């Protein structure tokens, strides 16, 4: 079974600064995907970024980027130029390509301070 661990229950960052959220996972599979989802107070789960395990290049989406270390089974999310709208719960998730099921971490509550 796969597990996903987010070791930071809460974090805060000043507006316009950069913050990094940590995620580690455990799997014996080789073909999988990793995701970061954002959940603002509205409850909506929004996909932030996706990484295919077979790709060595780290994924980027505007102000969001990941540091994917496959050997270390680490998948951190960096948010640059933090904005007030980034305040939310952030969930790291794992999906084995053979199952199409998401396994989520417990989440990190991020607060962006004006």
């Amino acid at each position, binding site marked *: 079974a796969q597990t996903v661990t987010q070791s930071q229950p809460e974090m805060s960052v000043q507006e316009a600064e950069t913050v990094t959220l940590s995620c580690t996972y455990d799997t014996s599979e080789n073909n999988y*995907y990793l995701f970061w*989802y954002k959940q603002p107070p*509205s*409850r*909506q*789960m*929004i*996909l932030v970024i*996706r990484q295919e395990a077979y790709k060595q290049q780290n994924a980027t989406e505007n102000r969001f980027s990941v540091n994917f270390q496959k050997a270390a089974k680490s998948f951190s999310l960096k948010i640059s130029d933090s904005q007030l709208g980034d305040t939310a719960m952030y*969930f790291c998730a794992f*999906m084995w*390509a053979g199952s*199409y*099921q*998401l*396994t*989520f*971490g*417990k*989440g990190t509550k991020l607060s962006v301070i004006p």
Partner: protein
Amino acid sequence: DARVTQTPRDKVTEMGQEVTMRCQPILGHNTVFWYRQTMMQGLELLAYFRNRAPLDDSGMPKDRFSAEMPDATLATLKIQPSEPRDSAVYFCASGLRGTNTEAFFGQGTRLTVV
């Protein structure tokens, strides 16, 4: 724009009552998931369907929970009888297996059983 629609958004019910939550997946998606979110357990997969057939419902308490897809545009999750420990946010998500790994989430149903 295409989105997953869940109803009701919020539901308060008395212990012992039947609860039905509905989900309209994105048109054309062939996979539907039900997740439950609680503070203690985080996001857990309850069941998922592909082409309307249940593939995995091992995460669901069988004695009181049931999930069905009467047609391609409707998925239901029923709890009968409901108990206070069922209080949670229930998410439906849909995706298109084979072309895209992303799961699109609805806004969830917040269930409170008193």
